[in-house]
């Protein structure tokens, strides 16, 4: 994402000085990221869209309190994260997330053992079934693993940023991230290799 090429502090100053329309431009590069995070948390497109809209509105209203000591993108993601988490609490107060199984930090995850890995290039994502498989695997992670994975490996937050955003320790971020990655490997590696064509070339 080419957000580095934009002068975001200047855009924000201009919005605060009255050029509110510029907010549309400011958020454009972040729409997908905020939505992806909300979707991975909420597992439901309608809820994810709703939370994304709420998060951007909240960001707009709270823009005067944005201090600029964090990047705008990180600040935005934190707002969206809180929005998504409170939505989950409200929604699941009625119905607990029972499909996940125990969400504790005990136990180790053994990876899928293969003797060889045939690299799957990004072009494979042109195939809908591959995108669907990956999407399903991420959203199937239990919430405590899913949120860490989303912030670290999808949003590319640092361990410290993710710990601060989630209100957990750095060591919990590392433990949960490791488990999340291993769960994904365990689940996805055998399926992805099966979907790989027998020939060596992909496209």
């Amino acid at each position, binding site marked *: 994402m080419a957000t580095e090429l934009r002068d975001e502090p200047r855009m924000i100053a201009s919005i605060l000085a009255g050029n*509110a*329309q510029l*907010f*549309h431009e400011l*958020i454009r590069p972040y*729409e*997908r990221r905020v*939505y*992806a995070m909300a*979707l*991975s948390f909420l597992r439901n*497109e309608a809820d994810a*869209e709703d939370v*994304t*809209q709420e998060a*951007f*509105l909240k960001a*707009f*209203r709270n823009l005067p309190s944005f201090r600029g000591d964090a990047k705008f993108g990180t600040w935005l993601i934190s707002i969206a994260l809180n929005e998504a988490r409170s939505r989950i609490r409200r929604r699941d107060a009625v119905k607990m997330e029972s499909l996940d199984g125990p969400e504790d930090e005990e136990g*180790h995850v*053994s*990876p*899928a*053992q*293969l*003797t*060889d*890995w045939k*690299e*799957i290039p*990004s072009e*494979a*994502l042109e195939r809908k079934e*591959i*995108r669907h498989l*990956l*999407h399903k*695997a*991420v959203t199937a992670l239990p919430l405590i693993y899913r949120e860490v994975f989303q912030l670290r*490996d*999808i949003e*590319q937050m640092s*361990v410290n940023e993710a710990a601060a955003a989630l209100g957990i320790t750095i060591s919990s971020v*590392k433990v949960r*991230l*490791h488990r999340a*990655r*291993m769960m*994904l*490997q365990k689940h*996805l*590696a055998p399926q*992805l*290799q099966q979907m790989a064509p027998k020939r060596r070339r992909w496209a």
Partner: protein
Amino acid sequence: MIIECKHVWEHISDYLDQTLPPEVLEQVEKHLAHCEICSAILDSTRNILILTADDRVFELPLGFSQRLHARIEEEIRGMAP
């Protein structure tokens, strides 16, 4: 010191994040050099992380952007003096 496969698995995440202490890194690398199972686990994990981080995995619904900006526009107009 020789380490076993299951110990190597515990270090995969830190290995990928390049946060292993040098002495552990050396043991892990020594193990990886001769263990094809652990090498395949490492390669597949790295590959899967690249794929899942791709924008295409979480697609925006049709009309998403228009609806979002319409709501923001409403908010902006609502604030206007």
